């Protein structure tokens, strides 16, 4: 039987911080990588590095900035490895985007999540179906087009419009007036 010991206290603290920031970090990677299948690989590798480098993290400093920089590095590494890197954003653009985001705005995923539950009812049935296929079933627009009998461009436009409707609704919900 394999015996392992409990990780040291500071590693446990790092793990707890990672778990706390995980949804936003996953969203961060998702925005840069786009391919759902690759996102989990990058997040997984980020976690391994965070854990391995736990000793180098200074408690009390900005964990998010630290973890984000590791994730950014992993994204760039993944793009370098990827045969299809020509389909992704260039490293310069990713650096520019990350520099803009490093200021550290709140992702507010929890509040958005709550509002989305309500706002989904505002979508037309077909638009809701397209959104569900995209986010529940993780289908890409070409597959959605095939399943719904639409053209790919029609799916792209429908998804974009649905997101705009949802964004307005979520903003209304999250504003003091909506609350």
């Amino acid at each position, binding site marked *: 039987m*394999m*015996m*392992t*010991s*409990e*990780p*040291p206290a500071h590693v446990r603290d790092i*793990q707890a911080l*990672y*778990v706390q920031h*995980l*949804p936003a970090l*996953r*969203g*961060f990677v998702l*925005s840069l990588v*786009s*391919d*759902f299948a690759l996102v*989990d690989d990058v997040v*997984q590798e980020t*976690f*391994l590095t965070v*854990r*391995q480098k736990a000793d180098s993290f200074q408690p009390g400093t900005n964990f998010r900035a630290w973890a984000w920089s590791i994730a950014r590095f992993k994204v760039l590494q993944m793009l370098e490895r990827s*045969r*299809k890197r020509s*389909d992704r*954003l*260039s490293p*310069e*653009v990713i650096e*520019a*985007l990350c520099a*803009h*985001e490093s200021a550290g*705005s709140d*992702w507010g*995923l929890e509040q*958005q*999540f709550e509002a*989305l539950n309500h706002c*989904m009812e505002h979508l037309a049935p077909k638009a809701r179906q397209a*959104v*569900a296929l*995209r*986010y*529940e*079933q*993780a289908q*890409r*627009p*070409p597959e959605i087009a095939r399943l719904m009998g639409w053209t*790919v461009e029609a799916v*792209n436009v429908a*998804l*974009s419009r649905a*997101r705009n409707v*949802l*964004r307005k609704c979520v903003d209304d919900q999250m504003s003091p007036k909506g609350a």
Partner: protein
Amino acid sequence: METGHFHLLIHKHLDDVLSSVERAEVEHALLTSPQARGEFWRMAKQHAALKLWGECQQGSQLQQRTRAAHPAFWWAAFAVVAAVALLVFLRSMGSDPSADRGLAKSVRAEEANVAPVESRKQRSSPATAIDRPVVEIVPTVKQPTAVPKSPTDDKGVDPTPRARDTALAERESEAVRAAAAIVQARDDASQKRLLEAMSRVQPEGREFLALNQKSSNDSLPAAAPSPLFSGGSGPKPQLLPTTPMTREQNAASRTEIRSGSSFFDSKNGFGVFVDDVELNHPAFKLTADELEVYMVSQQTPKPPIGAAQRDSDRKVKKAFAKGRKVVILKSSADGRPQTGIGREAEYDGATGDIILRGWPRVQVGDDISEAVEAGTYFVLKADGNYKAQGGRVRTNIVQGQEKAGGAKLAR
């Protein structure tokens, strides 16, 4: 750039369907405009929230299905939790705190066993998603029931150097095991895709596979000692022949295939390749998700080496590529780069022509021809010309002035 158009392009990026032209447009906007970058992150946050929402919905549906299918499961789960709680309580009556920690860890280890590494592709509720990395890193390894204590532990002093070294070594081995589990999971997934691809091959390939299966069944080795162990009767190790120090003559005519996983039948000259396949042929370069290759048969077959298959003596007779996006790069008749994109491609080694199907598009320089009907296909001729057949096409030819204007704007 108009806001609505920019939003559409960012959404297409998030959906992984941005074309190369659109990507250039987005990248220009993101590099030059801070407002565009701010807008990108706003949309990215909504995308992340929607993904979270979708996974939660998926998780709820799975949960409902599980409840409907296995109502007794919840009673069993409740009984297990109650038993564990009772055990924890009884153990807490004793004086050994490390026993409690060990028990709690064993419970976590049981939970980890329920969700192996492969489960990271599955949808889950937000709570499950939050817990996921911890669960994945210790996939199926049992946690210890008690930590060996150093003599100084109870006094609140740091453990001995030996205990620290042991903990460090265990932590490292844990990370190595986790990494190995990830590699194994990826390899399994790749093998699964290879088997799926092999089940979809052309009739000719199916025959080869059947023959291959039959011969491998016929020649199952009997359980005999291997002659390759040091005391065996096999051949003695010999010096390798010297490598000639001359330049390879036929490097330019070599075909190279790179892939994540592959199957190669060297006897029949037939291969199936999956995962980021890249075919470098002297006349063109092709990338796809799946590739079937049929070589011109020869007398002395040469086994493949690793994932990168090199064969300098044999020529490709036919090749079939499939995938979400099959890309072909070659030169046009006038020497300009010619790019063909579709979902299926068929290469005929006899003529050197490539047939591109699945809403194909061909770009030569700045001029683009694309299919506007499902049945349209392009034939990329060996001489660099191409023709469309089977349906209507739309061709955009950029005029000289427009090109000059574009260049001016770019400057």
